[in-house]
């Protein structure tokens, strides 16, 4: 839903464009991001040490209040103009979505959790889709939910030019076939657009009545929970909407979400029983979870991709030998094992583990492509490339503990190879300025993360296509551009897969990036909560087509 850029809308030149790179990870100064994409190959529950699958058999009590400690404070609950993950997590409870995710990372239709009664029917070889929605959905204020509301939800971001504008401007036209059926026309055919349609639907009339206060004072959705009261930075209080039009009601009667930004305090409230679930468990507290029997850690693999991108615009990193030399400066496995485990795992290619498997990518080949640490070889390559002795490799990254540590380890490696290297963590504003300029003496390597839709196209197009929205490193390779554009147009897995495999092959040969790691979503859950589960993409999953959490 969040995060991907509309490929068809080519922005003109690659001039200094201000871009943001999807950023995930705990400890962000700004609010933390709710889950975007997380692939989890088999069992939906995480690979953590929890065992949710079996306790659904015991009699789940209903009632009670679930308290949930968010890592960031939500600001506004208007799906049309969403700014941060904490707010979108709240929206997921209050609004019903057009489509929902099933067990794995593919969008499905699962009424009453999703408004769409079925997956979209494609026409005009992929450039038109028909979506049918159920006819008995109602909003909290009693208004009836019709196709008009859905149309309004997808068109309004363009009218108000909100942040979601770039996601929905792929739709050239949205027509109401009848009260409960819509026809979406796409600028260019793109199968993955369905991911962007797992979108909370707003009540048109209620929102138009007072657009300014919608999402602040008045929050009207059609989901199983009503938002009864909230104070920014203090709490958000939900109550179960007993006459919800769905066939099943959530077990918990009410929910209280409290933002506690400080990791340790959040954990203390959890272990003190003040809070039932805690979002985002920092690595250093994993030991505390083992020590405390009353709480468990749930981990979900997240479809994100953290990498070190070289500056192709100017400076030493434009030379392939220098990029290879830097590869020799550190062993990615040891750095990630030291700095990122147990909150993430190492990656060797631009697609995260689950997605790579789903698209049958040669992961073992990718792994062989990267070298272990060898300072002499690195020094030789630097010599070969004629790098001046006083060269300083400038590494930059936006704020974030894990990213800074990885950056420092890389800088150490380059130091050992005889060249100077400096690692700077910048606040978001200056990071964007510097990466937009890509000047040689400001930014040779940028370390950052990406959270696009779980479709290879959006991963590759964004940063490897010469006109990709986030390709400010200005990597360009015609063959790769061709493969990505074809990949988007073709329909069907068999035809798209080889295109992407070849494109990634070129990318790895050019060493455009050094893939680093994939971060997991972590939740600390106390024992008196049952049926809690994590999902590769949408978290926290409290009351969904997959589970219905309950609390003692």
């Amino acid at each position, binding site marked *: 839903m969040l995060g991907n850029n509309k490929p068809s809308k080519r922005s003109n030149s690659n001039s200094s464009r201000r871009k*943001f790179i999807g950023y995930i990870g705990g400890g962000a100064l*700004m609010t933390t991001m709710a889950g975007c994409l997380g692939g989890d190959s088999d069992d939906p529950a995480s690979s953590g040490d929890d065992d949710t699958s079996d306790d659904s058999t015991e009699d789940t009590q209903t009632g009670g209040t679930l308290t949930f400690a968010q890592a960031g404070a939500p600001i506004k609950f208007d799906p049309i103009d969403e*700014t941060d993950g904490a707010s979108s997590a709240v929206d997921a409870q209050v609004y019903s979505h057009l489509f929902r995710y099933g067990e794995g990372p593919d969008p499905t239709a699962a009424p009453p959790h999703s408004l769409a009664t079925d997956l979209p029917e494609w026409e005009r070889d992929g450039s038109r889709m028909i979506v049918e929605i159920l006819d008995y959905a109602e909003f909290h204020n009693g208004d009836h939910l019709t196709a008009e509301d859905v149309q309004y939800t997808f068109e309004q971001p363009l009218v108000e030019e909100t942040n979601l504008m770039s996601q929905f401007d792929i739709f050239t036209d949205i027509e109401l076939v009848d009260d409960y059926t819509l026809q979406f026309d796409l600028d260019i055919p793109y199968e993955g657009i369905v991911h962007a349609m797992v979108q909370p639907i707003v009540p048109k009339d209620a929102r138009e009545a007072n657009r300014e206060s919608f999402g602040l004072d008045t929050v009207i959705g059609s989901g199983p929970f009503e938002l009864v009261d909230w104070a*920014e930075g203090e709490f958000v*209080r939900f109550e179960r909407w007993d006459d919800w039009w769905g066939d099943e009601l959530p077990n918990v009667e009410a929910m209280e979400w409290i933002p506690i930004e400080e990791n340790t305090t959040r954990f203390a409230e959890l272990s003190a029983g003040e809070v039932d679930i805690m979002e985002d468990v920092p690595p250093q507290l994993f030991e505390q979870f083992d020590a405390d029997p009353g709480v468990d850690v749930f981990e979900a693999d997240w479809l994100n991709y953290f990498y070190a991108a070289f500056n192709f615009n100017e400076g030493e990193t434009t030379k392939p030998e220098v990029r290879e030399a830097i590869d020799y400066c550190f062993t990615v496995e040891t750095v990630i094992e030291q700095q990122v485990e147990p909150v993430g795992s190492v990656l060797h290619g631009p697609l995260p583990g689950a997605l790579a498997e789903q698209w049958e990518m040669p992961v073992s080949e990718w792994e062989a492509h990267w070298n272990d640490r060898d300072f002499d070889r690195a020094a030789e390559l630097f010599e070969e490339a004629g790098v001046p002795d006083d060269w300083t490799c400038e590494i930059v990254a936006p704020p974030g503990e894990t990213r800074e540590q990885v950056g420092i380890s890389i800088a150490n490696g380059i130091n050992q190879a005889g060249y100077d290297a400096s690692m700077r963590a910048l606040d978001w*504003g200056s990071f964007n300025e510097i990466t937009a300029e890509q000047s040689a003496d400001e930014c040779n390597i940028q370390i950052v993360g990406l959270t696009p839709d779980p479709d290879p196209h959006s991963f590759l197009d964004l940063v490897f296509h010469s006109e990709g929205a986030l390709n400010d490193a200005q990597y360009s390779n015609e063959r790769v551009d061709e493969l990505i554009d074809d990949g988007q147009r073709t329909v069907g897995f068999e035809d798209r897969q080889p295109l992407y495999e070849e494109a990634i092959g070129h990318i790895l040969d050019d060493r455009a990036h050094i893939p680093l790691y994939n971060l997991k979503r972590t939740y600390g859950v106390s024992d008196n909560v049952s049926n809690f589960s994590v999902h590769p993409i949408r978290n926290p999953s409290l009351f969904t087509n997959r589970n219905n959490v309950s609390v003692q």
Partner: protein
Amino acid sequence: MSLFRYTFWRLLQTIPALFGISIITFALINAMPSDPVAIMLGPEQMASEEAIEAARERHGLNQPVHIRYLNWLVAVVQGDLGVSFYYNGVSVSDKILERLPATLLLVFASFVFSISLSIPLGIISAARRNKLADHIARIISLIGVSTPSFWIGLILIIVFGYYLRWLPISGLPMPYADPARVSGAETQFEVLLQTLRHLILPTIALGTLRMAAVTRIQRSAMLEVLNSGYIDLVKAYGVSGRTIMRKHALKNAQLPVITIIGLQISGALGGSVLIETVFNINGLGRLIITAIEAQDYPLIMGTTLFFGIIFIIGVVVTDIAYAYVDPRVSYGGES
């Protein structure tokens, strides 16, 4: 000159100071390297060119600086501090008024804590000069003045928050908040109890420095007073030691304490920024940190202005209190 006219005149004098603050803050903010719009649109957006341009237009960021300052000033005079970027859509004044009570409560509590402890401590240590009580008081106040307030906060959190779990360590519910919104409280009285429980640790952390400083001043002021002629006189006329302390000496020894309290308000407000961060209290202090990190121009201007206003009110109040206590200072006369 009556008290009222003195207050009015004193407030008038603060207008240039307020004006000065707004200029300094506006100048500082415009020197900020990065572009607030880029941040405003949030890191997870794939914002395209148009979205950025639109946001820039919406917040009037493309006019020249001095025009923007004048618009801002005109708006402020009418009480409209503009709309916050970060909390998109929420007006700055609402956000500040929403967060102000927590800071005021915290600063007020820290003053009550520090004054109620430091004045008796200062007096006792002056009365029992070079005796045990004096040495203890001096050691406490010396350490108190030299300890970083946020470090005390951390230690209190470790000891009372995590290990002993006696006291809550995060958040600060307002006493007037309605019970439904405060966890663990049904009646309004219980809300008050919760507020007090939440206040204890942050108040100690913020108040220790002030308590120590006022103790030192109270002690040296008391010593000076005790060595003065009028104390000799009343002693010679058979007035008891207790009355001398409680009546004759105390009132004079309060004067330097009152002036220093006025000056400490600025320190306390500064300190609250730290303590609110440590104790996760949603006050003005944390708001300004969030505002600065998000380079939210109007919010920064608003909070800095409010900090200035609170300080100036504090100084004026202490001046009046001083004039009330010390007859030599006639209101507005040759003070």
